[in-house]
């Protein structure tokens, strides 16, 4: 008589001991809880203004606006990256050829960020100037273009004006908490009007009229960066992002 014995299966995992099961379950639950506590990840576009042949404003001494905005871009990346922000910069170095504002807007509109920050600096005024587009905001939902309608290039920001104003307000509150003077205003500053996302221009001025050189102070810059990071975190908490890229609208080059 032939007796067939089943082959021993080497692929079958060994059953875990009850204490190990408990530990694994605890770790799994802790990881889940940690993930639930984390704020939702949003993508922020940073646009250090000017660059290349366009030096921007001549700040104190030999400091140029294009260099200061690039430095702020690096500081902001370092402050925001650990806080679950996805970051895109329009430039990470000084380009050798002109880098037009339309090119920056194209990068922003392709990547569908949750917020766009255009970084500027000036030697006039004091504190921080937060500027939103001067385009009129849609009065009612009916004024909004249909989801598949082309958006005029020069008015791409129009539908995002309410969100941009909220973003500017949150950043302004955070800067005031950091005891940095802040002014909220509106203007027609390229490429703000062409951006299809909540967008503000942040212009950094000296801390006070009597200290024009303070704009180059690393401690002052770091205070600004930390306040902006706090403002963005607050904005993210109060305005949960929709799924990035959900809007099928893409700004087109339609002329007015």
């Amino acid at each position, binding site marked *: 008589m032939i007796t067939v014995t089943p082959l021993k299966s080497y692929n079958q995992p060994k059953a875990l001991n009850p204490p190990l099961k408990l530990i694994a379950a605890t770790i799994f639950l802790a990881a889940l809880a940690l993930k639930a506590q984390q704020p939702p990840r949003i993508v922020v576009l940073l646009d250090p203004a000017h660059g290349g042949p366009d030096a921007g404003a001549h700040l104190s001494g030999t400091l140029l606006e294009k260099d200061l905005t690039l430095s702020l871009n690096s500081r902001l990346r370092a402050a925001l990256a650990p806080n679950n922000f996805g970051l895109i910069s329009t430039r990470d170095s000084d380009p050798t050829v002109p880098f037009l504002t339309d090119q920056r807007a194209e990068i922003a509109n392709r990547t569908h960020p949750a917020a766009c920050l255009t970084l500027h600096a*000036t030697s*006039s005024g004091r504190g921080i*100037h937060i500027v939103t587009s001067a385009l009129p905001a849609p009065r009612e939902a009916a004024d909004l273009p249909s989801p598949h309608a082309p958006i005029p290039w020069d008015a791409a920001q129009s539908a995002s004006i309410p969100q941009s104003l909220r973003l500017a307000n949150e*950043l302004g509150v955070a800067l005031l908490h950091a005891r940095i003077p802040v002014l*909220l205003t509106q203007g027609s500053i390229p490429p703000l009007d062409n951006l299809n996302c909540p967008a503000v221009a942040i212009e950094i001025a000296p801390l006070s009229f009597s200290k024009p050189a303070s704009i180059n102070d690393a401690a002052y810059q770091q205070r600004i960066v930390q306040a902006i990071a706090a403002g963005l975190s607050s904005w993210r908490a*109060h305005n949960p992002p929709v799924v990035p890229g959900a809007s099928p609208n893409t700004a087109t080059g339609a002329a007015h």
Partner: protein
Amino acid sequence: MIPRYQRIIFWSLVGGIALMAAFLLHGCQQAHKRLTALNDATPIAAPTNTNTEDVTLAVANDADASISPNADQVALPQDPSLRARALLDHLLSTYSLPGSAHPLQSGPAVDDVFLVNQSPAPNAAVVISDNAAPVPQSQLAIVNLHDSFVDRHPSGILTEALTIQSIIGTLHFAFPAIKQVRFLVNGQPHDTLAGHADLLRTYPAADTTSHPRPPQLPPDTPDATTDTSTDATHP
């Protein structure tokens, strides 16, 4: 006998004094040139007998980013284009006065202001009545700035935007028929005023009076910056 090291120190000090004297002299000359340029009072227009008029200027203030209406008295020519140019020249010259809240350098600012009549929209409804007042035709103002004004203008979003709003607001107060404003520099389109404010777009001529409010806490939270998801610290 004077030691060698003392002689070296002596002549080094003499050399330093000479250098400092030369530097001081050069600085004085530069300051004198600058002041002379500012005080250039050469008459460039023949005097005319014109009564002053009450005008309203939209005056900018850098400290609070505001535009405020300010009554003033100015002698203006009768021709609308010259009138607009003289008004803007007066406005911008006030910014070069000491203690200005929106400091700009003095010098020529506006070359011309062209007022272009705009035809009404073809599908616009027209109401004809015997006793109706004639509806003024809407106008487009084209402000041709001097290139030296653009070159001298301080670079910055806020200061440039305030200059533009001040010009537009002043034109709106004085010429209600102006509905739109465009800018040229030396007769050519120019991208920005001094690197920031857009000069290529057509601006609506409206009352630009504004007093920006400080940031407001969101109504649903007592403190907008208490988010614990960031390690940002406030002093």
